[in-house]
């Protein structure tokens, strides 16, 4: 057990190190001078003002110092939780900007993942048993999983938002409202939340449904299923075993899909101008706010690694074979 988790932690640590280093390296090794281009954006600067700004940025980024020093500085600041200041946020600490956007993102992401995983697996399992359901679920599933996240978002926004005017098309809540603990505000929040949620949910649902359907079929054809049936076990028992075994790869699948899901989250937020991490990232890109960009990136990395780790733990709990393997007991 220790060896298993030890390896996982090692992998994650290396990943984090690699990712953070990439993050640190990019502005320093890209062609061109990021500081100069930043300064060039500020139109109408006097040359004195420009020099001062260049000085300021260089200090901020530490570009004048030797590379090694820069590297250690970076890690020092990182471990203190200092991700720098956001230009887009008018000098707000990056961490603050991220924390402000995080609740919105989580409110979309977590329910979407959990509900789509549960619903997709259920439908997939049902489809594996009933032919008529399979004929419906399969094409729908493939279409959904082939749909680009942002496009579904756009289509939903268009149909439900523009044409039918049921839901608002952008923002996290109405522009005219202030965040308060009121019912009105809450319903407005939900109204803004529904379409991005539906968009994420549907695409993921398709993928899980297809995966589960395939897995259940595979398990129902396995030797242990055949044996149970040869001994006259009722379908209920056979299915129970098949479903439980089919779920295992779906759990690992969750970890594998995390990167993709996060990508989907990002673009969906952009479509709906939903004020989560995705929109923040988008704005950071547009305004070339490198600190914010880096901060968000590191944050995403950490979040992904944590989520991966949680899935690893969940898997060990659910699949008894992993524990047996670790005990060293095989024949």
């Amino acid at each position: 057990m220790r060896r298993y988790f030890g390896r996982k932690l090692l992998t994650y640590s290396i990943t984090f190190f690699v990712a953070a280093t990439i993050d640190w390296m990019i502005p320093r090794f890209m062609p061109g001078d990021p500081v100069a281009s930043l300064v060039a954006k500020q139109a109408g600067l006097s040359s004195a003002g420009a020099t001062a700004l260049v000085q300021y940025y260089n200090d901020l980024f530490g570009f004048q110092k030797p590379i090694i020093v820069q590297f250690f500085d970076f890690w020092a600041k990182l471990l203190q939780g200092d991700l720098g200041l956001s230009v887009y946020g008018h000098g707000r600490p990056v961490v603050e900007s991220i924390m402000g956007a995080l609740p919105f993102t989580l409110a979309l992401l977590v329910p979407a993942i959990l509900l789509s995983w549960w619903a997709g697996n259920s439908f997939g399992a049902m489809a594996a048993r009933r032919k008529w359901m399979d004929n419906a679920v399969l094409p729908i599933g493939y279409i959904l999983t082939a749909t680009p996240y942002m496009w579904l978002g756009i289509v939903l926004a268009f149909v439900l938002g523009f044409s039918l005017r049921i839901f608002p098309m952008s923002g996290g809540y109405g522009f005219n409202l202030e965040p308060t603990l009121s019912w009105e505000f809450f319903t407005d929040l939900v109204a803004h939340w529904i379409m991005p949620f539906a968009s994420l949910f549907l695409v993921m649902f398709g993928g899980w449904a297809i995966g589960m359907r395939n897995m259940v079929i595979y398990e129902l054809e396995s030797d242990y299923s055949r044996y149970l049936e040869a001994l006259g076990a009722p379908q209920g028992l056979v299915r129970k075993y098949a479903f439980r075994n089919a779920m295992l790869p779906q759990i690992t699948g969750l970890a594998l899909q995390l990167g993709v899901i996060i990508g989907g989250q990002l673009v969906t937020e952009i479509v709906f101008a939903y004020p989560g991490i995705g929109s923040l990232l988008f704005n950071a890109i547009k305004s070339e706010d490198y600190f914010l960009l880096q901060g968000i990136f590191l944050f995403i990395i950490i979040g992904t690694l944590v989520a991966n780790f949680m899935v690893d733990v969940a898997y060990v709990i659910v699949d008894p074979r992993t524990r047996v393997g670790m005990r060293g007991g095989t024949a």
Partner: protein
Amino acid sequence: MSLQVSDLRVYYRTLAGDVKALDGATFSIADKEIMGLAGESGCGKSTLGNSLIRLDGRMKYVAGSVTLDGNALPIWDNTGMNEFRFRDLSVIPQYAMSAMNPTRKIGKMTGELLESRGENFAAIKPELLRRIDLVGLQRDVLNLYPMELSGGMKQRMVMVISTLLDPSLLIADEITSALDVSTQRAVAETLVSFRDHGFVKSMIVITHDVSILYQIADTILIMYAGKLAEKASTSAIINRPLHPYTRMLVSSLPEVGVRYADKKLSGIPGSPPSLLKPPTGCRFRARCPLAFDKCAEEPPFVEVDTDHWVACWKATGTDA
């Protein structure tokens, strides 16, 4: 009589048509009889064995009847057969080593299986433990996962589970094929002990290895290309085989301790016919050294001596 099979035909559906894997089997097995079922790969022995317990995948019942202990077995009816499975007839499958759910402890799985069949696990458990002792396994195997057992251990466990409810008929499908010789012997002896202890009444032991049958079977049924070739007591098959195919099969067996320096081991030249469009007449005709004109007509499976059945014109003394 324990088992009676009459003109059983089971085909396989394929894109190209029906493969006539089992084309008319008629035989019977008495109580306490261990019948070996032998033949080359593709002769239909697995089809026969499996069709009795469960029609799998592409198998399709075409004709024939099966009676066990006086009860007609509705082998074409999957749900109808459930009543008989495990209690009246059972199987030790070819895939015994992967027959147990890998993510369930063996004891738990057995319990759930029994309960689902309406048996009381607690009441049966003492007997289960006794039998585990009998086959030489540790009692704590019930607390283990299948992956913690060796191949041989898993097989023995499956043997115990399959016979737990004392079925009338046990079908053992190629259970020695994947084993080394000494384990083969141990498994074969275990099978016999099951019969002697009264756990099973009669058995069909399916294998392509006639030498095993020589050790444990009371009677042997030889199949060829979907048809029955010969059925007789083991000593009759080995010492006085009547069907040319049986004779060649038996003579191709090496004997332990005998040197074959002066004689070549005779295999049987040629290969079995396609069962998609089987030839008319005796199906062994093309490879048979004794074939003559009459063989263009299919020989019936008839009793030529007490409990000695053959499907061959030469053997029944019907010369053209």
